[in-house]
């Protein structure tokens, strides 16, 4: 039986970023302690207790606002409940600006917080650096400056973290090729093992959506993206998914589970799970969750069609690609024809029996994938 990935959601942020529409809100220290209690209890009550797991991912929100003590005891609850591999990948998303011990946890120093987390078994940190331009960071509503990020990375290295991933954003309002080049250069100088590059998407209801009219046009975004792909490749980072790049052997094992249809369990409001052909998610209600009411907001048993769509989508979004032979007989020729059509336009390439999206193709992957969805028989 394949090993589980465990996802732990923190629905708190000190302050919401200007582009974020994920589920999170500010919380008091007491609320966070109570939330951590509920999360631990939920983990311990899992129906899949005892199963093997090999990745743990603390995401959010901003997990680090829970405080070191809470993070450590949540991880302990995971270890107690699941048979966690000794070499499990344990990732913590961290805001470069606030990795510190809360006063009630006994301090305000940067190094000890990271040291405690490292000692507790966290071995991969994900820093939402986003940009090396402080102007862009301010625009995004981030609370850190690039210098904070640089220091956080250095501190993590000092403590012993050997696996760091940094987030970068392009397609920002007013972002030119020059600041984008500089951001990549500055982040590469920090020598992370892994990088994620996301295009800013204006989500309705976010402050950025309301405020900014002028985003770089699609052509500029494409050029930014292609520059990143090329530059990161030259620096030894292999693109293994639309937005993800890693040094050899450093692709995120947890995220890979999402792409290959491996099982994962999510805990916390709005967290998603997938196991045994069923996807489910917990309701976006932190207050109820904290009281121990674990209500599902959706549950979907994958139909043959759903499964097929996911194979297509997840295959083409990654370097796994799509071999038409895995599709039902009736679809193979149509799928190959659609993909073949884009080969001369440089959007798709062939590697043996598999079709893969080129970086240009990845940038229009929605159109290609939805076109393939269209040939799935009803």
């Amino acid at each position, binding site marked *: 039986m394949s090993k589980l990935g465990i996802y732990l959601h923190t629905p708190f942020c000190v302050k919401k970023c200007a582009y974020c529409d994920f589920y999170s809100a500010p919380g008091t220290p007491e609320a966070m302690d109570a939330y951590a209690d509920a999360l631990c209890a939920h983990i311990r009550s899992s129906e899949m207790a005892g199963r093997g797991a090999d990745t743990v991912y603390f995401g959010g929100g901003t997990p680090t606002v829970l405080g070191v003590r809470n993070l450590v005891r949540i991880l302990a609850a995971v270890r107690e409940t699941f048979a966690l591999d000794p070499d499990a990948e344990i990732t913590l998303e961290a805001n470069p600006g606030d990795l510190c011990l809360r006063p009630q946890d006994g301090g305000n120093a940067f190094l000890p917080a990271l040291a405690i987390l490292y000692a507790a078994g966290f071995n991969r940190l994900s820093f939402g650096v986003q940009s090396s331009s402080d102007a862009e960071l301010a625009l995004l509503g981030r609370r850190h400056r690039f210098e904070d990020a640089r220091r956080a990375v250095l501190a993590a290295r000092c403590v012993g973290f050997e696996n760091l991933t940094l987030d970068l954003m392009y397609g920002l309002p007013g972002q030119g090729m020059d600041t984008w080049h500089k951001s990549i250069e500055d982040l590469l100088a920090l020598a992370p093992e892994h990088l994620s590059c996301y295009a800013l998407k204006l989500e309705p209801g976010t402050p950025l959506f309301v405020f900014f009219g002028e985003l770089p046009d*699609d052509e500029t975004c494409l050029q930014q993206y292609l520059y990143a792909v090329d530059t990161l490749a030259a620096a030894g980072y292999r693109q293994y998914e639309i937005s993800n790049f890693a040094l050899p052997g450093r692709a995120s094992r947890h995220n890979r589970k*999402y792409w290959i249809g491996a099982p994962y369990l999510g805990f916390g409001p709005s967290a*998603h799970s997938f196991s045994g052909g069923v996807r489910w998610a917990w309701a976006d209600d932190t207050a109820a969750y904290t009281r121990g009411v674990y209500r599902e907001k959706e549950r979907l048993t994958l139909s043959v069609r759903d499964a097929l*769509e*996911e194979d297509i989508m997840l295959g083409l979004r990654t370097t796994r690609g799509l071999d038409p032979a895995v599709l039902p007989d009736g679809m193979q020729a149509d799928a190959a024809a659609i993909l073949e059509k884009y080969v001369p*336009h440089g959007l798709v390439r062939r590697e043996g029996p598999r079709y893969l999206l080129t970086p240009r193709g990845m940038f229009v992957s*929605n159109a290609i994938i*939805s076109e393939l*969805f269209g040939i799935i028989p009803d």
Partner: protein
Amino acid sequence: MDQKNIRNFSIIAHIDHGKSTLADRLLELTGSVEKRDMESQLLDNMDLERERGITIKARAVRLEYKADDGQTYHFNLIDTPGHVDFNYEVSRSLAACEGAVLIVDASQGVEAQTLANTYLAIENNLEIVPVINKIDLPAADPARVKQEIEDIIGIVAEDAPEISAKNNINIHEVPERIVRDIPPPGGDPSAPLQALIFDSQYDSYRGVIVYIRVMEGTLRTGDTVLMMATGAKFEVVETGYMRALSLEPADCLTAGEVGYFTASIKSLGDTHVGDTVTLAARPAAEALPGYRKVQSMVYSGVYPADGARYDDLHDALDKLVLNDASLSYEPETSTALGFGFRCGFLGLLHMEIIIERIEREFNIDLITTAPSVVYHVHLTNGEEQVIENPLKFPDPALIDYAEEPFVRANIMTPTDYVGNIMELCQQRRGVFRDMTYLDKTRVEIHYELPLNEIIYDFFDALKSRTRGYASLDYEFLGYRKSDLVKLDIMLNGEIVDALSFIVFREEAYPRARRICEKLKENIPRQLFEIPVQACIGGKIIARETVKALRKDVLAKCYGGDITRKKKLLEKQKEGKKKMRSLGSVDVPHEAFMAVLKFDE
């Protein structure tokens, strides 16, 4: 009923001048409809008619009115369609009447359409009863409007009732005027039968219900009737009167009366509007004058958006034609659109109505090709071809000359806009005929125009150049020589046959440019560049490019929320389904319609 107590009349009015509202008031006043059954504008009983506020098909109803003189009168109100597309139906409805109530809006005055229908009424020797409506509007000027009626139409309007149909002001005067001014019908009940068909309707139980006005003689249940134009014979199953909410059987219909008969008639094709019904055993010596076969003026390819629904579309047309003999159709195939039908319509409004009814009542999404008039092409070998489909336009090398239909357009407008209108007509290849001052501020302009120039967007252009004040009416004149070419549109290097159309040579260039621009706007970006070209023969005369889509990606897939991403892709797939794949290019339905509308 004694002939002297019968009044057969119709109501003539411009759209929005209040015809249907007045009809409703008369129905109420005569107790023909209980208040609770009153739907606003009852006479227009198709949903579509009620929404558009216009009458599409003529309807008739018999009302009983107890007049101030103490006698009871039978009013036969024959409603008429109010649009130029249905001119012939209007003329036949009027022929069934002795009089017409002319409604004129107290603020708007006489409009071209009103005038056209009034002329038709006068031609049919009808007594005109003018009524000034909407007198409660702030802008109402009944005195001016009455003067206008006298000046323009040449009838006495001095003592015309001033009413508000909407607010029930002075309504009573209208039926009294009908009794007083409209003559009773004549005709000899014992003469050979001559009955005029002015409308018919298909009923799935009884077959065709034929609406007639008996001019001479008597029609009884059980008679065998002969349709004089088609030669068809039927045995009459039922005769009777049309009431507001139902049909009321009666033993017979006699000269002067308006009513219906049924005779297990399976198809409207046997009951042409304008035909004369007579008795097979004792036929009339001659048919009533004025009959002509309805001819389609505008043709268009009609295709199901989803090719799998061809059979459904076929069924829909079969059903619609039962109730609308002026619709014609035959199967057609397009490389771009697959299987569909070439449909013939009376005009553009008729076309829009049919398309909307198919989409609404039968729930089939449609794609229609550019409406086309019927061209006559004379080949060098002496042969003449009638072309109602651009695809059949012959090779230019074989053409001696081509002809296109012309119409005489009557436009009424405030004098301020004469310049604008002339400019428009000139642009549309109009030939100026004359201009008459109706009064100090209004003129009637006559132009001869190619019908083709009118069917697209002429009316809209006219309205926008006159702030909605001008009104238009037109009649068919005949065919005239014209320099015509076929314009083809290519997407990604392939001709899209459904977009081809025939155009006056000098207009081909500007129109080609505009169509390419429109297509560029309406075709969503796809993953590679798409050239949009227009050509005549093999020669490209306009080109645009739909740039390639560069970015269509959801980068972040947060916390394993695969479902959210997949839903977005599903939605995108659904959007794509709404498009037609032409060669390798996806074209949304709107693009087909958009190329037909040319904004100025």
